[in-house]
């Protein structure tokens, strides 16, 4: 199992569209992937789960993955956060 701290850079935070992109990406990996924020831990493959976090810009969340492709999964999801979910130029 690996973990990575990740800052949220996009203005709107983990709103519906960003959460959809994130869960879509998480579903491409077989590893179990979780987002941890404020003691809440949700499945990154669950769109509604991500929405319940209500995490916004500037917050730091923890990405956690366990499985054969955990490294690739964390890297790809971390990149998605860093790219601000491709929302802003």
């Amino acid at each position, binding site marked *: 199992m690996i973990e990575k701290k990740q800052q949220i850079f996009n203005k709107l935070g983990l709103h519906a569209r960003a959460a959809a992109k994130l869960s879509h990406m998480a*579903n491409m990996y077989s590893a179990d992937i979780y987002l941890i924020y404020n003691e809440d*831990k*949700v499945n990154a493959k669950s*769109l*509604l*789960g991500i*929405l*319940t976090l209500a995490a916004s810009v500037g917050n730091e969340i923890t990405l956690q993955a366990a499985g054969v492709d955990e490294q690739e999964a964390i890297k790809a999801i971390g990149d998605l956060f860093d790219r601000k979910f491709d929302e802003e130029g």
Partner: protein
Amino acid sequence: MTKDAKGIQVSQLRELTQLKITRVFNEKWIHNLVSHPRPQRPGLGLTGYFKHIQAGRIQIFGKTEAGYLRSLKDEEKQRCLKNYFSLKLPGIIVSESIEPEPDWIAGAARYATPVLVSELHTVPLVSRLSAFLYQYFSKKIKLNGVLMDIMGQGVLITGASGIGKSETALELVNKGYQLIADDVAEFYIDSNDDLVGRANEIIKNLMEVRGLGIININDIFGASAVLEEKKLNLVINLEKWDPKKKYDRLGEDNLYFKILGLEVPLINLPVGPGRNLSTIIEVALRNFLAKKSGRMTYLEARSEALATEPPPAAPGREEE
């Protein structure tokens, strides 16, 4: 509502419409913290027996307390109020719209205690208040799954992502059962030691169905298709059919799902082609209810019959 690990402010209790608070005295101290889930009726505490009066508990004054104070002579009453309020209580709620007397309010003010008045009778006031406080102070846990009311039972449908939890739940909603929470359900232990689940406010009434997106069950199916919260009675875990795994063939497995120190009956349902999950779940519920009401399982009935019936005569030669 802001969450504070140390407690909840009396001002937040005032906002609860179910408590029917009509008036507030000593409002300056309305931000005092209640740090205990059980409301307290002072009772003997007013006579000077303070042993069990706890500083963090919201106090309820009913007819008994009011009547007792009124029966005291002035000097004695002042002493009693002083001793009682010096315990630094977070707040007093007077029930049944009883008019708090000026010296109670003054006594409370000396020790920074707000006094609230509710329209409710003491018993419903205490029960509503403790129901709320129990939920507020209870340890909470989020579980991945769909929480539904099926035949009056709270059922959590769990399983790996993409196995078809939401699709199965949608079929069940279509059959007339109620959705409480899709994907993530939040559980707490209520004052009856029951595990109660509800949806996070953000995703209440919502369901995600791949291909359709996020849909609002309340808008599509109406208010009768959703429920605010439900006690959990059964967990049904959907899993990919594994030919090597031994599934319950006789209906004799008694599995439990452990959560927050409680045990909830668990059924593992393998998902495979040709298995209509919503129907299987409905039947599982009927079977669960039958067992709960004391019906024997097939196997129990069979072994009981074998124990009481005389053994069949051994085949002998004379039959030939």
